[in-house]
């Protein structure tokens, strides 16, 4: 039973990605989507120069792939951060990682346009998580509540820094920063996929191989040490890799919150907490969730609503549900 659930989650991006390609303002039949994809990859069908082809391969396909990659990053990083901080209520957004990355991106867009955007995003995302962790840590261990509070503080701080950038840049750039901060895939193209893919993989692949360590680290600092784990080094590695993934995600699509909180929880409910299974499934579940949310955001109305709004509208009630359900236990040690 658990095996079937796991398999369904694992291959879900394909089943969600397909309708994401045929749904939209310009109607394309499901069959035509398959035909176009087969034409592009295997060259079996001959289908001339029809408008559907450009819509699918140049507009929708890169957008679906980018959404999938970003969802995978945010959800994978969510699992990682929840594991190393042994706190089911954190994700990259709550800990301020996204806000830090956003500040890095904003100063790059505003003042350092010749710089690779991922670089500054990574630097400030790492600073954000290190500050959040240091502030929360008192006498060895950290309580769940204090980590969330310090995440809120760090988020607020970096959001304020972003505001300063917005205030100082010229209005033309301001517009692009504001739109990008809302979190959206509407500008996605193959260039975005090409730029972010290596960074995202450089973050997620090592985490995938290290994932069993998350089980041990989630037992707490002292216990993991007596079990033979170099806690400090492993935490630094996990933070570095997950932040790299999040920073590259933020630098292509802005801040999209709550995904890293919701998806890991849903997947954990279905397949259990063992990170050897949880992490890969959260990665593919995150991809599916983000593709679905993005498809909603562009088909719900005639406008392309920023997908960050959709995830926040679902994420906030979800957080409240977790809080109520967990009760005292969720907030205590």
């Amino acid at each position, binding site marked *: 039973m658990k095996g079937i659930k796991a398999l369904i989650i694992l291959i879900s991006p394909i089943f969600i990605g397909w309708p994401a390609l045929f749904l939209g303002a310009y109607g394309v039949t499901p069959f035509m989507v398959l035909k176009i994809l087969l034409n592009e990859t295997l060259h079996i069908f001959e289908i001339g120069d029809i408008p559907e082809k450009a819509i699918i391969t140049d507009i929708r396909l890169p957008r679906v792939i980018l959404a999938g990659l970003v969802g995978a990053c945010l959800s994978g990083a969510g699992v990682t951060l929840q594991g190393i901080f*042994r*706190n*089911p209520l954190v994700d990259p957004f709550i800990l301020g990682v996204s806000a830090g990355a956003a500040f890095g991106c904003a100063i790059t867009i505003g003042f350092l346009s010749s710089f690779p955007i991922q670089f500054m995003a990574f630097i400030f995302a790492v600073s954000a998580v290190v500050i959040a962790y240091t502030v929360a840590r008192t006498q060895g261990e950290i309580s769940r509540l204090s980590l969330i509070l310090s995440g809120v503080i760090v988020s607020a701080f970096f959001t304020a820094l972003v505001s300063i950038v917005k205030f100082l840049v010229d209005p033309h750039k301001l517009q692009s920063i504001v739109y990008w901060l809302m979190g959206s895939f509407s500008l996605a193209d193959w260039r975005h996929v090409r730029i972010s893919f290596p960074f995202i993989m450089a973050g997620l692949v*090592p985490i995938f*191989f*290290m*994932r*069993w*360590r998350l*089980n*041990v680290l*989630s*037992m*707490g600092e*002292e*216990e*993991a*040490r*007596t*079990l*033979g*784990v*170099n*806690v400090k080094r*492993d935490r630094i*590695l996990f933070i570095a890799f997950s932040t790299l993934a999040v920073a590259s995600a933020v630098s292509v699509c802005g801040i999209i919150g709550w995904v890293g909180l919701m998806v890991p929880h849903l997947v*954990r409910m279905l397949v*259990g*907490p*063992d990170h*050897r299974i949880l992490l890969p499934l959260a990665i593919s579940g995150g991809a599916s969730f983000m593709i679905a949310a993005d498809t909603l955001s562009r088909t719900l109305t005639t406008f392309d609503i920023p997908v960050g709004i959709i995830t926040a509208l679902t994420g906030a009630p979800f957080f409240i549900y977790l809080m109520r359900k967990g009760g005292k*236990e969720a907030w205590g040690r």
Partner: protein
Amino acid sequence: MGKIMNLEVESLAFRHRGQQEDVLRSVTFTAHQGDVTAILGPNGSGKSTLFKCIVGLWNPYEGEIKVGGKNPSKFSVRERARLFATVPQDHEPPFPYSVLDVVLMGRASYVGIFSSPKRKDYEAAEEAISLVGIEHIKDKPYTGISGGERQLTLIARAIAQSAPVMVLDEPTSHLDFRNQLKVLSTVRSISRERNITVLVTLHDPNLALLFADRVAILKEGYVVAEGDPKSVITEDLISKVYGVETRIISSDGTRLICPVMGELT
């Protein structure tokens, strides 16, 4: 193994950073291989500090801790985990791992950082589970079993760690009467079967009388008595260490101490 893996502690002293007073002043005792050695002492006597110094969580300390004649103070965390298996006090992890998954964590010092447990790790975990007698709950969530079962799971995890020394920090403190006896008799039979050096901190002197081969009694950072529990635990000593008047009662060759009520000094 060849070498005799006794745990020797010699004039160990420890104080917390920035504090004037030593928690441990001069602690000397030996725990022998294949024996259960109990550390007794009132609250604040330094039992937990001693525990943390031995497994390497707290340092630096003065004096020496040796296992099989070797000083592990320069060991890496991984090497240390292969020497000391630690059973922490009862606790609740944030995620409901299965009992088997918790026991598997005992293999962390044998599994590389970019790797996951292999078949031999599963074999070690399964063997430890059956040795402790918890096969029937191995797929249950660790958060959904009783306190006694949790303690047995942590003991199985320590066995899976395949270390010559096992250190338990008050394994009975949250358990009911039956589970206290069950956990300690399991510990004792494992120390015999596997020829492991077991060190356990306890609150109840009667449990030491029932299960320990040797006992070291700690008061204000000193070992005030060490040796065979039956000869060390006397009415006089208990009154000195705990400030409680007691009588020794014997029945069927078992000696127990019984407090004399109304005379707490």
